[in-house]
């Protein structure tokens, strides 16, 4: 990790009161997380006499986190530091959005597919949606992040229904697009070789129970 090298370039945007945007916005997000945790644990019982309740420790740590987040924010406002890498915000937001899309689509299409008689098809639908969204959005610096996240999600969505072979192959091909230098023929051959290796390694050599092919 090259934290030392990165922190040397102290670029300050003109007209902004924030000296170190990485710290300022980072601290702000931590404060937000702390408040979210307080909200999530508000219904848990607290102290009962001198005994801790289930909610005591989470609230304690959340309050402490909020305090330290505020300190990080304050130091970020008043000290100089490096700028945030371009694309960080967009990448994080879109990456989180992909995960959210995956979860929401699989949750809300489940009753539809069940009523149609296709069990477990909702995660495939979610994987397809994630794939399409990634194709539409992945550009610039966040390309690597989005394709990696998409390939993980696609694996998660397809492994149960399509089996190990198809799920691995598809997710390898998708994640190979995370670099700018995609070579189609090489990718397909490499994906096939890796899939063959995984098929041998996991179900046979390590004796893990995986379905290899789609189940109907």
């Amino acid at each position: 990790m090259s934290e030392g090298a990165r922190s040397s370039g102290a670029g300050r945007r003109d007209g902004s009161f924030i000296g170190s945007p990485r710290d300022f916005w980072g601290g702000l997000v931590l404060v937000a997380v702390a408040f979210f945790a307080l909200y999530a644990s508000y219904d848990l019982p607290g102290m009962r006499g001198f005994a801790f309740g289930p909610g005591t420790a989470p609230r304690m740590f959340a309050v402490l986190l909020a305090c330290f987040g505020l300190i990080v924010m304050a130091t970020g406002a008043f000290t100089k530091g490096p700028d945030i890498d371009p694309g960080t915000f967009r990448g994080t937001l879109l990456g989180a959005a992909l995960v959210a899309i995956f979860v929401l689509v699989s949750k809300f299409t489940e009753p539809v597919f069940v009523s149609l008689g296709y069990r477990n098809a909702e995660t495939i639908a979610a994987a397809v949606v994630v794939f399409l969204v990634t194709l539409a959005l992945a550009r610039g610096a966040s390309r690597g992040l989005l394709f990696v996240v998409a390939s993980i999600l696609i694996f998660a969505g397809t492994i149960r229904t399509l089996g190990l072979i198809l799920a691995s192959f598809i997710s390898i091909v998708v994640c190979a697009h995370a670099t700018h230098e995609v070579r189609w023929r090489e990718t397909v051959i490499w994906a096939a070789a890796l899939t063959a290796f995984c098929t041998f390694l996991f179900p046979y050599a390590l004796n893990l129970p995986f379905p290899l092919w789609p189940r109907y």
Partner: protein
Amino acid sequence: MFDIISNLGLGFGVVFQPVWMDFLGVSLPIPMNILFCLIGALVGTLIGVLPGIGPVATIAMLLPITFGLPPVGALIMLAGIYYGAQYGGSTTSILVNLPGESSSVVTTLDGHQMARQGRAGPALAIAAIGSFAAGCVSTVLVAALGVPLTSIALKFGPAEYFALMVLGLVFAVVLARGSVIKAVAMILLGLLMSMVGSDIETGQSRMTFNVPELSDGISFVVVAMGVFGFAEIIRNLDDQSEEKRAIVSSKLTGLMPTLHDLKVSFGAIVRGTTVGSVLGILPGGGSVIAAFAAYTLEKKVAKDPHRFGRGAIEGVAAPESANNAASQTSFIPLLTLGIPPNPVMALMVGAMTIHGIVPGPQVMTKQPDLFWGMISSMWVGNLMLVIINLPLVGLWVRLLRVPYRMLFPAILIFCNIGNYSINNAPFDVAMTAAFAVMGYWLIKHDFEPAPMLLGFVLGPLMEENLRRAMLIARGDPTTFVTRPISGSLLALAVFLLVLAALPMIRTKRDVVFTEG
């Protein structure tokens, strides 16, 4: 003294214990544990040699493959992976000038210079020899300190445990790089994340939003693999700088160091081992600071300090022995007190709990075969590195030439399959994606994820001991200060924290970490 020998004897008995297996109708004795150690060291080196992937990421990625094994075998294999990953990191530092992890940053200084002078072979060999020598000494040290420390630990009550964990976390903050306040914030974030799931005492679900998959809490593998493994991959893809790797292309000739090399390195190895062993025991110490300290010491005692940075063999021998000694002795707080002193040990705790072993003083008394087997396997793991990895250096060099665009899909798919196989749960895999995004964000905002992982692992233990101590003291929080041991531990923690926050010390500390 005699105890140590008999205990180590028991350990080696476990390590060498043969399992009778049928091969084509012939029953053959196979020393399974040695085999696990061997596989672990090999696979660990294989992943650890990849630039930008350190031991934590390697272990996080390889954790799932050990789950199918019996507990002793799994832990032995993990230890093998750890040493392999660390040695792999040194190999990349020397050959490519890209440290795979922070503890081998120092090795690049002289190691890569040696490689450029055509002495990559001796550099790699002295790294392995130094590590092995350090490993021998520190294995005995671990064995010797195991029993007395355990007997102290058995006297600890919940208040002392809580104070000790606070001290460990403070050490981790003080000795880590970057801002102290941000590191504390990361620990708190980790603690908070560990609270998700069922409450230990009442079983009430906390912060789960009625998601059934979260009722057992967030899986440790999911966090580690996402935040360390996948986020590292994403960061490497972002950087794109690794395309310009300066692999030393000259043929590796003459692997063995000369007699003169050995003579010069001997003192360096001894000093490195001493420094490393001491720093490794400190909670939060670990191999990074040990390597830096050993290098600085070598520079100080050298007759001609100008040779350093220009290919001095002591500059490889000392930090390499120090980081190996430290990584070994950092098992001491884990095995005796049950407290992980660094993120790698935090991963070990995770692995142990998955196998149903609660790390702590009771491991030694209740499962002596596991305890001593693991200590003996450390030595065996080091031996493996010397006898296997040195002849295989050529293979690792070839692996470094494989373009990254082919490597990362392979890593990614192995991780995914491994992750899925733990619980057969697609939910876990999807959640890992979320943690990968989180890890990416943390890196971009200069938050070190390591303290977070430490907090995440220690969270349940800390809460349990805090609650018990408060209950015993009838709700009186002064119990932590008035009990002598816990009071002095907490005082030490506060003292360290204040010290680290002082501006004078801070700049000095930054110098240590950026010295190049």
